[in-house]
């Protein structure tokens, strides 16, 4: 058979996925709290650290976690990037700044958008505050927070912040151990 045909270089073959996620016992209280406008973390009694989001297990010790800790909607930028590239499937229009934000009271940063300031003003150690969407549209999601904005407080030394947080975690760990002994 003659196979001297024009090559077909590429043709569209779209694939779509629609998932239905099941909420675990650990994440359910967090999702309900989000709907109330409250941010929950989990205390790991093995390490004394406060995990966020609370997925129900401590990644360091493997211990199941369930003790809720209410976190603040203020925090500190510990890392960030400004994205200039459009990402397929994303509604965000570049440039936009995504930061790793350590909420006050947590030991684990979460990613969120920074807005209401110039891109060049964003810095490691910047203090930020959550800007919530109107309460009527709150759902079981961190999307209830639209973005974070600078508080105007002075920059924080993040190495010192880490030492303070680790010292507090150590105290919580000892306290949890004491509770078990008693």
């Amino acid at each position, binding site marked *: 058979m003659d196979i001297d045909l024009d090559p077909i270089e590429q043709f569209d073959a779209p694939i779509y996925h629609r998932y239905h996620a099941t909420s675990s016992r650990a994440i359910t209280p967090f999702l309900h709290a989000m709907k109330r406008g409250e941010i929950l973390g989990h205390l790991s009694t093995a390490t004394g650290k406060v995990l966020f989001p609370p997925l129900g297990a401590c990644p360091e010790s493997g211990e199941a976690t369930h003790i809720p800790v209410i976190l603040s909607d203020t925090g500190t930028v510990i890392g*960030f990037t*400004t*994205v200039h*590239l459009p990402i397929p*499937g994303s509604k965000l229009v570049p440039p936009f700044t995504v930061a790793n934000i350590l909420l006050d009271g947590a030991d684990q940063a979460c990613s969120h958008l920074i807005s209401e300031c110039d891109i060049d003003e964003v810095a*490691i150690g910047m203090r930020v505050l959550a800007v919530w969407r109107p309460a009527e549209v709150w759902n079981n*999601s961190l999307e209830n927070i639209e973005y974070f904005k600078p508080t105007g407080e002075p920059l924080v030394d993040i190495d010192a912040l880490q030492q303070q947080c680790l010292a507090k975690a150590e105290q919580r760990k000892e306290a949890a151990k004491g509770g078990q002994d008693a």
Partner: protein
Amino acid sequence: MSNHRVAICGVGQTERYKTKLTCSLAGLVREAALNALADAGCEWSDIDALIIGKAPDMFEGVVMPEAYLAEALGGVNKPVIRVHTAGSVGGSTAIVAANHIKSGLFKRVLTVAFEKQSESNAHWALSPSMPFRPHFNSGAGGMFAPVIREYMRRSGAPEDVGCQVAVKDRLHAIKNPHAHLHLPDIDIDTVKNSPMLWEPTRFLESCPSSDGACAMVLAAESHADTSTHKPAWVHAMAMRSEPSFYPWREEVNPEASRACAKDLYAQAGITQPRKQLDMAEVYVPFSWFEPIWLESLGFAESGQGWRLTLEGATSRDQGGDIPWNCSGGVLSSNPIGASGMIRFAEAALQVRGMADQRQVEGAKRALGHAYGGHSQFFAMWIVGATKP
């Protein structure tokens, strides 16, 4: 576990790692496999098992490609195993294959890793919408940019270091006929003036989207003499992993990276990698990961890796004492799933004296390295010209 010596008898790569619109996935992997078999002086019938590796299935939209590709790779009625550790998978796949020889289970294994980035979009595939979180993932560059910024903060390295790596690896790539990018006119200013993608990472400080496959034939000592070319020998290999996120995770110099290198060097009796190795092929998809890994892998003290780059120590063209990525590295070709195996294979070619224009004169011992996920999967091997 038995401890048989492992020889790398054949290396095969696809012609050039640029976008290939007239070659199917099956054609791609078969080309690399046939080249590896030819180098090893073997036939399909000489192969006992097939070990395939690739990065996330969403990179092509083919789920379980190992099932569809087994026939193209002579896998009918043979054991077929698929390995997946994100971007490090090419390295992990080589190690899984080597362990099947080391254990004595098989005499000859064909191992293949591939990616055809032109079939999907890696930025999309790496930016999935997660349950109960806002959707603003921004691909691998977005994930690593804060890590690079943190390295810059801690080390106080001059801003030019990343640009210098970008130039050095692209100049290396000119000597590699397989390299996707051939940019002979590149210089620091071209890199500096290229668009910012994920601050502080510029376009020319990032890897390209490439299509390609890499294959190796690994053999037990008793079966290592089929080729007219001498084999390379595995002296050490190690893998480590850690979770993506945990409190105060060290992202610049991950614990798993340090542990993996420590294990590797202990096996090979290496205490001073810069002195005892002749070259290294290290996974550097964004320019600043050269100084980051120079430090993590013990080639430089903490905070000092960037000095080696600036001094030209890692440049083959400048006669550096420890050339890194003579192939042009991931910055010049990134068929993601294959990229780790290319590092491992290029290290083997160097100690076999078969790296042609990119050869480091007299290379006897070389490092192949790969990392993946959120800097959380690590795979490394050391290969040598002589038996361990």
